[in-house]
């Protein structure tokens, strides 16, 4: 009740302010700023998309103009000749198992750390947390030789395992917090009903933890899909490049070959699926990414 009345007071005061001349001026300033930044974000992407339908000639001599005719074959060249199709498949081969493994292993470890008391529990939790202290580039050289010695250099499974290992600390940190919030009565009830610990985990706890698992799934998907430095160091075989690596490679390659239109098409191919997925899941994705800030 009180909240209601005061809200109207506030709104009323604001409305009075807005009706005045300076209010209108401020309102237009606000709109101009917002539209300006939106244009700054959107326009480069629109330019990219329509340019990817142009010929090399048009790209060079009329950077602003719309394509005279839609050059669909740019996309074909990008997918086949520039190997975007191959890189896309390679990324899937690495990210899907990496993501699955990360979520399962982290959920198991986080569940134990959140709900079981045993000597060393805290120590293990902080051991995992210590991994977030170090930047990745500190590990690059030893990691390169380690994977080499294990015969995992230039292999998909090597990349999958390394991606997983480096995703564990934050995922475990987040899911431990999540499992702690689940009611312990459920656990006891299930045990009394005759379920064993494994059944409790897979049939009771995991379904309950689904929102947390999805958040971590999104967070890690973007991290792995966009991962650049790890494949750059651990994957030298051009046939097995993942997307970001392949994209970077062809940008540097293209300076010599000059097939700009295929390159524009390649970036468009990479951007569009991200855009579609983002627009559909945007509120979840925003949450998924900004949770990273919570640890600060």
């Amino acid at each position, binding site marked *: 009740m009180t909240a209601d009345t005061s809200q109207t007071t506030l709104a009323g005061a604001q409305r009075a302010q807005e009706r005045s001349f300076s209010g209108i001026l401020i309102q237009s300033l606000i709109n101009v700023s917002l539209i300006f930044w939106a244009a*700054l974000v959107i326009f480069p992407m629109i330019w990219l998309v329509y340019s990817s339908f142009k010929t090399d000639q048009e790209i060079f001599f009329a*950077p602003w103009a719309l394509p005279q005719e839609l050059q669909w074959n740019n996309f074909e060249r990008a997918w086949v000749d520039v190997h975007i199709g191959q890189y896309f498949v390679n990324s899937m081969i690495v990210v899907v198992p990496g993501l699955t493994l990360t979520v399962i292993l982290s959920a198991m470890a986080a569940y134990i750390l959140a709900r079981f008391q045993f000597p060393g529990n805290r120590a293990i939790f902080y051991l*995992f947390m210590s991994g977030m202290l170090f930047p990745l580039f500190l590990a690059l050289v030893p990691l390169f030789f380690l994977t080499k010695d294990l015969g995992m250099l230039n292999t998909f499974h090597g990349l999958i395992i390394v991606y997983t290992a480096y995703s564990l*600390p934050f995922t475990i940190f987040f899911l431990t917090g999540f499992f702690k919030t689940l009611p312990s009565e459920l656990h006891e009830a299930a045990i009394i009903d005759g379920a064993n610990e494994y059944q409790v985990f897979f049939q009771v706890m995991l379904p309950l933890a689904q929102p947390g698992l999805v958040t971590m799934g999104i967070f890690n998907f973007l991290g792995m899909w966009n991962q650049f430095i790890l494949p750059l160091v651990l994957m030298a075989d051009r046939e097995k490049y993942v997307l970001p690596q392949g994209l970077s490679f062809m940008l540097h390659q293209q300076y010599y070959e000059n097939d700009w239109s295929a390159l524009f098409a390649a970036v468009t191919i990479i951007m569009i699926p991200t855009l579609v997925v983002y627009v559909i899941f945007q509120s979840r994705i925003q949450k998924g990414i900004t949770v990273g800030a919570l640890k600060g």
Partner: protein
Amino acid sequence: MRRDKYKIIIPFLFPAIALYLVFVIYPYLQAMYISLTKWRGLTPNPEFIGLENFQRMLEDKYFWNALGNNVTYLIFVPLITITISLYLAFLLTQGKMRFSKFYRVTYFFPQVMSLVAIGVLWSFIYHPTIGILNSILKAIGIAEPPAWLGNPDAVVPAIGAVIVWQAVGFYMVLFIAGMESIPVTFYEAATIDGANRWQLFWNITLPLLWDTTRTALVFLAIGAANMFAITQTMTEGGPNRASDVLATYLYERAFISSKFGYATAIAVSLFLMVFVLSIFTMRVTQRETLEY
């Protein structure tokens, strides 16, 4: 009571711990040792040389050059990003706003794109012949705009601008979350007392957002100390090392010049600098937290 609990504890913890110790902790620890050695990767055992790598770093002009660029990013990127994102967050929380949802979704989008894709896109935009930036600049009367990524004086601001462009949406969402958690009664009381929007922002919003701002500062500082993906994609540290940062320099030392010991020593120094800087930022910005 539950003596058999170890039947689940051990198999559930073991895989994660094993993977983590072998592929994360072991390499980090080994890095500390490798940084004290001379190693070209051909012999199985690195040659121990103590602190020699660190001494050499002090006289290495390329090291200082790269560090200088990191420091430039460190000064400007957080400042500009936080200013713009705070401003936009403030505008979007001013009562009912048309298209407010559209703006939030749009501004955040660069954050989900890979830095490599962003780097490639902006290399096109900055390109002197195919790009659109310079034709805009010519249209508004700048006769000879620089060839951004090819010009040693323009390349660092050009890359820094791209990072601001992609980061603003993220920090704006963070600030909006912070602003929305401030009780509306504070604003009501002040409005009744006759405060205008500007005063509300300076005297209520900003002080209560201090914790979010500190977090943003530390994140941005860590980002400015890295800058690997964007630099490697757009320029590979060029032209002529003008946009080198420590991360690209150490990558080049290690994986192109095979100076693994020296490269790791650079990585260790970079880590220590970031670590000290983060703690320093948190300490300096520490104030009495306002409870509300």
